[in-house]
């Protein structure tokens, strides 16, 4: 199995994640889709590291995980706060900051 299949898988996962972010209204699902996109990127990084024979991609994959973990912490906290205030987890309901 050549690494190019992994890249293809990562593209598929990334597109699924991106479409999910754009079309879903529930903030939790949007969040999960973002995680999916991040992990698609990780997969691509690891695949490229394998293709090029160095460790750079693998190292960056660890960094992305750290960032993703931090982002989940902050993001879920915001989500909790919004849900408490508005009794809704829909991203379309939180639209006060506009023109």
């Amino acid at each position, binding site marked *: 199995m050549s690494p190019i299949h992994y890249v293809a898988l990562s593209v598929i996962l990334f597109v699924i994640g*991106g479409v999910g*972010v*754009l*079309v879903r*209204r529930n903030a939790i699902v*949007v969040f999960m889709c973002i995680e999916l996109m991040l992990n698609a990127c990780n997969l691509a990084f690891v695949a490229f590291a394998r293709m090029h024979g160095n460790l750079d991609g693998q190292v960056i994959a660890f960094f992305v995980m750290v960032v993703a973990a931090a982002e989940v912490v902050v993001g879920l906290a915001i989500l909790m706060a919004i849900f408490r205030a508005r009794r809704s987890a829909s*991203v*379309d309901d*939180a*639209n*006060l*900051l*506009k*023109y």
Partner: protein
Amino acid sequence: MTTLHTVAATGALKLSWLLLAFPLFGAVVLLLGGRRSNRWGHLLGVAMPVAAFVYGLIAFFTLLGTSHRSQDLHLYSWIPVAGFQVNMNLLVDQLSICFVLLITGVGSLIIIYSVGYMSHDPERRRFFGYMNLFLAAMLLLVLGDNYLVLYAGWEGVGLASYLLIGFWQDRNSAAVAAKKAFIANRVGDAGLSVAIMLMFTEFGTVSFTGVFGTVGSAGSGVATALGLLLLLGACGKSAQVPLQSWLLDAMEGPTPVSALIHAATMVTAGVYLLVRSNPILALSPDARLAVALVGTVTLLFGGIIACAKDDIKKSLAGSTMSQIGYMTLGAGLGPAGYVFSIALLLAHGFFKAGLFLGAGSVMHGMNDEVNMRRFGGLARVMPITSVTFGLAYLAIIGIPPFSGFFTKDPIIDADFTEHGTAGNVLGTLALIGAGITAFYMTRMMFMTWYGRRRWEAGAHPHESPPVMTWPMIVLAIGSVGAGAFLIVNDRLQDFLAPVVGVPPESHGFFTAPGLVALAFALAGVALGWAMYGRTPVPSEASRGSLLTVAARKDLYGDAFNESVLMRPGQWLTRLSVYFDNRGVDGLVNTLAAAVGGTSGRVRRLQTGFVRSYALFMFFGAALLVFGLLVVRL
């Protein structure tokens, strides 16, 4: 051609700064002293000019007793810049001492007279302060040894005249007249200032000695330009056509101010400037001809106006314009005319001050009435004023042996010998002017002093107090004798010769033009008697001929200024405002509105929906990746 050679001042002349210091001190004390100096203010105001006059006499006799009659007193270095030195120097020479004596002498008499004339005015102290300031500025003007100091005095005179013409500032007409005088003067001042700049660029100096010494090598073009610019300056201060319109309105000031402006200061400044600059005029026959032309036009212009005015002061103002026209004409004749121009100026100082003070005395007795149609038959009730006025009258119309005859006729006479054909034309016009002078003065005499009493009800004319009559008596003596004293035996001519040169030849006193001028004057007197002496004067003015109507309106001088200068100026400002509002502001406002409108629409993109932002980001990122790929491949 004459040049100026000066020596450092010695002896009593080392104190010539006192001439300026006395009136300046008076002005400063009176203007800053406030109400505290009300009680004794007029005494100080009189004492300072008199002290200056006494010192002027001392300086004059010191000058007579020495062979160095052109003495320069260095006070301090005013503008010490490398390559450009202007010193605050006072030049006491034959010409300036003549003016000093005239200014301080006649000025003192007028100020003494004012003590009586202004006795009921609550602002008398301020009046005396301004009068002192006026004298100080005028003295600085004639004593400066370079054009820049002269200019400082020149502007000071303009300021003081503004303050004095508008002295009764609660009257709108006085305020307007003061502004008008100031603005008309500014036009002339511009000419003088440009002349000074031209001197600086051409010669690198503005001192009289420096300029006169090098002007000869600069070519006649520069001399002509300088001459014409100086003429413009002189036109402003001396109320010559085309800058004459302020003089008639200047009558809004108190009568002693009119006397001071017309006799001793202000209007003589232009003549002084021209005569002082004679080495420049000597190099340019064209400029001289222009000067003579302006003088001739003005002497007729002023005379015609004086014929039609019923206001005694305005009639006298027209007369002043006319007489200054004679002086300017004299200054345009070169060495043949300078001496007589100055002689007429000095004699005029006496008789015109006498006439104005006489008019003031009449007004004082007649509740400030100025309309001559309301006078008549005053000779009985105001004997002293009428006699002094009559002597000044004989002097101004040029009856021998009064002073006008000796000083005005030589100018007319010299006219026929200078400037070729043009000179003959100018001389003929000057002769006609002599007839006009006699006519309007005779008219004034008969309307004021003789004939039926046409007084307003309630008028109780009375002779003025001695403090007012004595100055008039002294001035009358001057009007009688000044001309003969200055001209007979060539006294003034010999005295002034080093400064202004010698007239080519003397024709004696009873030359052909002189006799014709006398005949014209007698004809004018006869006409005046026929129209205003023999037939009674109506109390209301008749409609009058076309010329009379024009002359009553100052020969449309104001109308001309208004339609040619003021209206186009207003149109220009309106056009500028329109252009500014619609053009400049319009462009800026349109741009601002366009930016505002566009951003108002673009703002709608901020919907508040996170998912649409995310869509934009995806498209943006896709575009970025696509762009990178395109660049790479």
